[in-house]
């Protein structure tokens, strides 16, 4: 089980003891204070164990206890009051003529809202995902993180490149997540400024200016769909230009430097699960630091790839938990007790990861509350149940979204609701009014939530 590395007390202690030399980072975003509402999307695969997920009146359940109770003291960690869980969310069984199955539908559609799109025979997300849509509106770059290495099937096998990410720059165009914690750390916290930093910065800017000019020259000769490709490139260059020109800021929640996993094992990000729990902890801590230090306002974190095949050896399972565990969870009540317990253990791990992340955000004071109060953390799943069942997909919303979601401690059960309402809800909570999302342009927000 993950240990919590952040606590409010520890952060306050850290803030009080900060020496003159702070760990510095460069802000990735252009926004100035006050801090914008933050969005954090956390995606898991393979469904939950229905009977052990949905809570009682006190929001207690074998899986959710790992979200709401401190792992050591078993006391309420304070997240319950800031959490809303939406019941009866479903993803339509619609492959839209692609080769996609229910894993693909949930994974690629959840945050794009669009129908699957066939490109090169593979089923891709059909549009821009909500995180990238907001990043575009805010003229900022999101931080996309993932841990996907799988012993049972190295991530993801050829022909399944579409399963690598749930976040999309545009139709059939993935935003690739960073998979190396050390590289992500160095991206967020570049090495200290060199003596010739100003000169280096000026030269880099002149290089990127020339590149931008050259790019525009090619772009002008292309038709609309090809030009879109270079537009992504141009946007990316502008993100980098903003980043290298940004001022360094102090980041008291900067985590320790993660290990160099690739030096330990060149396949660490491909097929080795020995490092997975530690890598996930690193990524969770980096996500929390990026948001609490305002290095970006949008973070996505992906635990496993679409239809992922983790072995969960760290939870005492160590078997192909996709084919040989999740697929065998064939009813809401569970299948045989041993298998049901394995599905519970898998999902308790995810819940603990979410808890680590949410408590880290809740430990940092901001205004009258905490960073979590200015955040919307969405914990979603590609399936409802592991046997490809698309009903009752668990959707957990944590944080007050800057006051837009003041109530918590609730399970929202307002009847069957289409998944598109999740994207619509996110947009509206993030101050980007929308009537619908993706292929349901008038779906509205989750009923009973606001």
């Amino acid at each position, binding site marked *: 089980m993950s240990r919590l590395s952040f606590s409010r007390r520890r952060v306050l202690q850290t803030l009080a003891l900060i020496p003159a030399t702070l760990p510095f980072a460069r802000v990735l975003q252009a926004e100035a204070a006050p801090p914008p509402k933050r969005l954090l999307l956390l995606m898991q695969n393979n469904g939950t164990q229905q009977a052990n997920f949905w809570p009682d009146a006190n929001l207690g359940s074998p899986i959710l206890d790992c979200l709401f109770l401190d792992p050591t003291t078993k006391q309420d960690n304070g997240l319950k009051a800031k959490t809303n869980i939406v019941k009866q969310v479903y993803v339509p069984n619609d492959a839209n003529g692609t080769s996609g199955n229910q894993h693909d539908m949930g994974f690629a559609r959840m945050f794009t809202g669009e129908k699957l799109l066939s490109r090169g025979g593979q089923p891709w997300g059909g549009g821009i995902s909500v995180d990238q849509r907001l990043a575009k509106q805010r003229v900022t770059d999101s931080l996309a993180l993932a841990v996907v290495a799988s012993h049972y099937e190295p991530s993801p096998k*050829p022909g399944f490149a579409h399963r690598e990410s749930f976040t999309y720059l545009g139709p059939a165009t993935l935003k690739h997540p960073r998979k190396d914690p050390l590289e992500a750390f160095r991206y967020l916290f570049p090495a200290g400024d060199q003596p010739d930093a100003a000169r280096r910065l000026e030269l880099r800017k002149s290089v990127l200016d020339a590149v931008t000019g050259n790019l525009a020259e090619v772009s002008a000769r292309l038709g609309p769909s090809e030009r879109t490709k*270079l537009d992504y490139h141009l946007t990316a260059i502008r993100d980098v230009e903003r980043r290298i020109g940004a001022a360094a800021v102090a980041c008291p929640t900067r985590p320790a430097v993660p290990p160099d996993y690739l030096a330990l094992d060149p396949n660490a990000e491909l097929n080795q699960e020995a490092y997975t729990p530690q890598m996930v902890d690193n990524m969770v801590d980096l996500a929390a630091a990026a948001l609490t230090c305002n290095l970006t306002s949008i973070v996505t974190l992906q635990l496993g790839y679409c239809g992922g095949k983790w072995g969960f050896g760290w939870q005492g399972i160590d078997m192909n938990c996709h084919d040989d565990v999740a697929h065998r969870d064939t009813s809401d009540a569970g299948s045989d007790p041993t298998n049901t317990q394995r599905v519970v253990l898998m999902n308790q791990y995810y819940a603990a990861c979410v808890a680590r992340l949410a408590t880290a955000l809740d430990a940092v004071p901001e205004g009258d509350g905490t960073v979590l109060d200015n955040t919307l953390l969405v914990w979603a799943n590609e399936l409802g149940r592991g046997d490809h069942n698309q009903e009752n997909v668990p959707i957990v919303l944590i944080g007050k979204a800057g006051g837009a979601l003041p109530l918590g401690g609730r399970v929202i059960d307002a009847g069957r609701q289409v998944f598109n309402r999740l994207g619509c809800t996110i947009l509206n909570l993030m101050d980007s009014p929308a009537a619908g999302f993706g292929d349901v342009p008038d779906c509205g927000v989750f009923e009973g939530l606001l």
Partner: protein
Amino acid sequence: MPLADPLSASNTRRVRRLSAREYDNVVRDLLGDSSRPAQRFIPDAFQNGYDNGSVGLAIQSDQVMSYQTAAEALAANAVQGQLGQLLGGCDVATAGEEACADAFFSTFLPRAFRRPATPTELARLRDVYRNAARLLGFNGGIQTALEAILQSPQFLYREELGPLEADSTPGNPVRLTNYEVASELSFLLTGTSPDDELWRAVEAGNFQSREDYRREAQRLLASAGARDTLRAFLHQWLATDRLPGLTKDLTAYPSFSPALAASMSRELDQFFDAVSWEGRGSLRELFTSSQSFADPALGALYGVPVAADGFQPVALDPTLRQGVLTRAGFLSVHSAIDSSGPIARGVFVLQSLLCAPPPAPPANVPPAVPSGDPRAQDLTTRERFEAHVSTPFCAACHQMIDGVGFGFEQFDGIGAYRTTEKGKPIDSSGTLVGTAEIDGPYAGVSELGTKLANSQQLRDCFVKQVYRYGMGQVEPSDSAGALAELASDFTSDAKLTTVLLDLVQSPLFVTRSVEPARTGSEP
């Protein structure tokens, strides 16, 4: 070789981003740098089934930063170690800085852009040089200009645009420039930019006709780069490029190790080379040859003694080990982590060798009993999966899939031959169902290889795979006629490279259409 409608299988004017493999090859050839910086880039998307698919290769900020990091390191190394070469032999001490900067922009830049730079591109890059030289001196100026060149789209993308003055009426065909065709040819056959001889041919006007393309293609096919590239294509087609990251359950297969996987990969490298360049070079040989290569570890797996260290030619038992489908590398990739994989093997044959993918599995597929399950203790792999064909719900597709896959049962999950499983004799009888002309029973993979070698469907599928690889895209749905005409003379006994030679001489290789303006809103 006239095509029914060349444009049906052609493409619009486009740019194709260098794949990681191509990027590393290009900087090796351009700068003499073998550090392979692209191995840390975002992985290629394989949207055409191959690493060079242009469609999904969008660039995001992480990639821009990777390009920046790589360009800065490459430029620093090149200026330190290869300055004379960058300057086209110009000596700063005698000719002066300005003359040598001119030499850099007139000799190096066109090779990096794979065409002469436009005046505006040149002016921009000269500005970068001048600004940097003012701060850092001449070498710093060249280094910074080189950084800009290596991050420019003209370097990172292969252009397929046609001449600047081409008619831009939507739908109109545009003929690519000679520089663009030279790049296309060179990347197709050698995975890198045009070499000196091809470049000189273009500059001298000796690269304009189909005969010129054929001549240059034949010359390039004799190079080491062509061996590397054809090998990469065959590995990607057969999915054996997965061998380096392959894992197995060591309880089921204690002899498996990354070193054994590396040996399997190397065996295929040598087998592909021998078939392509030393043997008849045909599909028949690829699917029926029992000649191969092994080191002692692989020899033990094959039951063939190999005395010395290193790889040696070996003759495998032709009744068991005919063709690439019987090689340990192929069989290991197409199996489960702890058992053989009749479903994976069957799907692969249908999808990638016959280009007839079975439909996606429906929801709520009844799971097969896992190999580690106590209930599977006495079941063979075939018995575990038999529910597929005995359940009417599954039978329609699985008769087709398992019918092929069960024929591989004589080989376990790492490609070792076996006669029993769980104490029961192996049944390696298979059946082909729903193919164009090779339907019927077969016994064992060697016989399957022979059947495939006689199959027009395999030949057509191979042509399609070459098209996907060469054109960087999956064939459009209305391109059947054009593809049928492409390589219409290709047979199972013809050299594999025949298809490449036909492709480079076909109109679709040199023609692009002007993309229509977008109607309606952004999707």
